[in-house]
């Protein structure tokens, strides 16, 4: 089976093309990894800042 999925289960976003990479000095990072790490940091910050529901007994 080829790297590109076929038929009804085709991926909506095909990530199989040439990778996008960013360079900064000695640092080389893929766009994909950068997105993952960026989202993690955003989620961490949001988790710290977003108000937690008061007085809620159950989630």
């Amino acid at each position, binding site marked *: 089976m080829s790297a590109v999925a076929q038929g009804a289960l085709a991926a909506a976003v095909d990530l199989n093309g040439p990778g996008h990479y960013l360079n900064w000095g000695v640092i080389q990072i893929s766009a994909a990894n950068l997105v993952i790490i960026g989202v993690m940091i955003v989620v961490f910050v949001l988790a710290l800042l*977003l108000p*937690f529901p008061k007085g809620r007994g159950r989630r």
Partner: protein
Amino acid sequence: MSVRERADLVQPDESAEPDEAAGWTAAVRRRLVRELPPDTMLPDTQPRYVASWIYVFGVLTLAAFLVVLGSGAVLAIQGPSWWHTSDIGHFFNSLHLWSVELFMAFMVIHLWGKFFMAAWRGRRALTWITGAVAFLGSIGTAFTGYLAQQNLDSQWIAVQSKDALNAVGIGAYFSPMNFGQMLMWHIVLLPAFVGILVVLHILMVRRRGVVPPLPLRDRPAQAGAEAEPGTVSEAGQEAEAETEEQP
């Protein structure tokens, strides 16, 4: 009422008779009830200060771990080459990959939170240690998983990583080019290792309770004062806490 006092209210049966039966089984039962009282294992209250979204990342990590295990189990049903020739198999491979990405992401965010809470305080060093070792074990599990893919990526990772492992002698017995060995480490040994650590980690969180907040001002007499660098060792703190918690 302290956690310990509340736990003491729980008896293995409804009568007030102390459990003094003889034998190994009874000894194990008494030990388990004493160390892991049901009321603290499955509490229906939580400390008031647990009021931040950062606290959900532990259970999110656990949930992701279960999705990883489940999707891995489905991949195991038809073996390691199924996903290359089946759309459904490929989907479950994708599910396994993305649940692993979520697992690692949630675990690291959980780690960031626990670090900034200094969550190892109050006899919780082992909770930190089991979590840290589980993290390292997860990295090893992921590594062997990538080797088990049986595609170009696996080939490259195998021939590259062999150099790191050979350099320190490990490669003599643990070879990333040995597919059978890597697969068995990935689906048997490492998940068991990580799984056991996760169970211990969670039991310890339940047993000790969620770490209380750092006091805003350092007072030597105040409970929970963080050790000033260079003063008291953790062992000293542990020993002291040990004597203080005698009923």
